[in-house]
């Protein structure tokens, strides 16, 4: 093969020394064994989990042509039909020009009934066994915002409890999302209308984003989602509520498949007290625009600097139940009683 370089005569065929043979042989055997061991998890795949060639060669969502995307949607529909026996409408919903979604939540109205949590599970085809929920509702002692004192597992016979308020937390759709920044494969990104989405077929399941999120809003599918076939929501979008494979990260998308078609998120629609408000912040006439102008607004963990698109506000003008009587007032002047002035009502 090479002309230059000294060659020992007659060393072409039997030139492999004993040492070389052992070395290369050991390397070959070791390498093959290691390769086989590395592939071993594939043997644990369920039959339905083995990707087809089309799925294996599928591109990133943002790089797919319309034809490729349609083929991907058809493949998803076929998977859903095979697994759940449901004819699903799988579609792709794109952001609209001049729309930026913002979510507001009225802490003085929320009664902690958890209807939003379960409406979200229902709408977004979240796993029931094991449970995955996008929304967390914390029961918080009145007078503090320290989430460490919140309780997920409150279970009184009736809510609200007069000593607590309720703090629902979900994805805040940050304008500067740390979860997007840490993704090593760009499987998650922020869309033009402010919704951060995940391409479940591109996610490698490293869970960096889950660690980076200051709001604890991302969930990992340790196993394939357990969804009763009769509770599957057949209206599903590529980027939001199609059934997730196992080993990927998922998150709240403000019900992207609904809001990009003009509807309201499922958590908002089910809220019995109307504590949730949603709309386009670029539209000055919108409800959220009016809220941002007129209410006392705050965002959770403002110091994290992620510029959330989810804000909380307070609306209450008088307590739900009468406050305990004030401590006795010591008059400063003689005989001058504090005037009994009613501040109740509007």
């Amino acid at each position, binding site marked *: 093969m090479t002309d230059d370089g000294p060659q020992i005569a007659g060393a072409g065929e039997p030139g492999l020394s004993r040492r070389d043979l052992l070395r290369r042989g050991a390397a070959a055997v070791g*390498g093959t064994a290691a390769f086989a061991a590395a592939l071993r998890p594939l043997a644990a795949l369920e039959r339905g989990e083995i990707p087809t060639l089309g799925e294996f060669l599928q591109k990133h969502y943002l790089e797919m042509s319309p034809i490729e995307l349609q083929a991907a949607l058809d493949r998803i529909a076929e998977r859903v039909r095979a697994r759940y026996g449901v004819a699903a409408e799988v579609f792709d919903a794109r952001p609209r020009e001049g729309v930026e979604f913002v979510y507001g939540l009225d802490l003085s109205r929320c009664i902690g009934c958890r209807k939003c949590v379960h409406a979200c599970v229902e709408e977004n085809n979240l796993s029931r066994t094991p449970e995955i929920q996008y929304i*967390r509702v914390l029961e918080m002692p009145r007078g503090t915002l320290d989430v460490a004192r919140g309780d997920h597992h*409150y279970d009184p016979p009736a809510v609200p409890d007069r000593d607590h308020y309720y703090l629902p937390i979900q994805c805040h759709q940050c304008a500067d999302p740390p979860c997007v920044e840490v993704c090593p494969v760009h499987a998650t990104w922020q869309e033009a209308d402010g919704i951060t989405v995940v391409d479940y077929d591109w996610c490698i399941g490293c869970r960096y984003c889950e660690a980076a999120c200051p709001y604890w809003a991302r969930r990992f599918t340790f196993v394939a989602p*357990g969804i009763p076939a009769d509770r599957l929501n057949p209206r599903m979008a590529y980027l939001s509520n199609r059934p997730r494979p196992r080993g990927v990260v998922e998150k709240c998308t403000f019900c992207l498949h609904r809001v990009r078609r003009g509807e*309201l998120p499922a958590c908002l629609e089910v809220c019995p007290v109307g504590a949730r408000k949603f709309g386009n912040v670029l539209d000055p006439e919108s409800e959220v625009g009016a809220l941002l102008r*007129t209410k006392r607004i705050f965002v959770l963990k403002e110091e994290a600097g992620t510029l959330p698109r989810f804000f909380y506000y307070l609306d209450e003008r008088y307590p739900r139940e009468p406050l305990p009587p004030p401590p006795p007032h010591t008059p400063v002047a003689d005989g001058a009683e504090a005037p009994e002035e009613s501040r109740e009502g509007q």
Partner: protein
Amino acid sequence: MRLWIAAVFLALAGWFAVEGVPASLPADLGGTIADPVPRAALDPRPLREPVRDPPTTVIATLRQRCTDCHDLFESRPETERPPVQHREIVLDHGLNARCFNCHARADHKSLLDGIGALIPYADSDRSCARCHGPTWQDWRRGMHGRTGGAWESASGAQVHLTCVQCHDPHSPAFPPMAPLPGPRTLRMGDPGERGAGSSPAAPRNPLEPAPASGSGE
């Protein structure tokens, strides 16, 4: 000298082969999928059915118009509760404890608005606005109360529920309700962790099916 690399590979391969890959991640938990929340609990329809025009009420299992009686009989003075009729109405509306603050005494198919003009029951929010002006202003801009339909009028019909679709006008405080079941998810801890009084349950692996005795099916 690169033999040690092969040795490491070989050792790893042997270890994987013996130990096996983590087999504790089942593809599917199998069995029945628990779904403790019935669909009916997630019905987004309004909580109350408001009184429609012409207003009616049920008396002795018969639905009657208000005017059926009140056109014949004059109403009692508003300082008195009627001794027989309307006993089912619990008036718990704060300082507003008189029927004819909102109802028109002269015309029982109407309500009163802020200047005492007669309004139909369909416009009952204007009656509420007499006292709850700021809340009514918020409601008109969609900032108070439940909404449905589309998030902007350009993409569909917007639904704004009226006051009486959530609040009972005679007892307007929003009624407490039982919360839906709490989380049993991976990262929110175990329900046994809460409360000082309850004994802490053994930590449960959510990836394993729940023990039949522990969690109610």
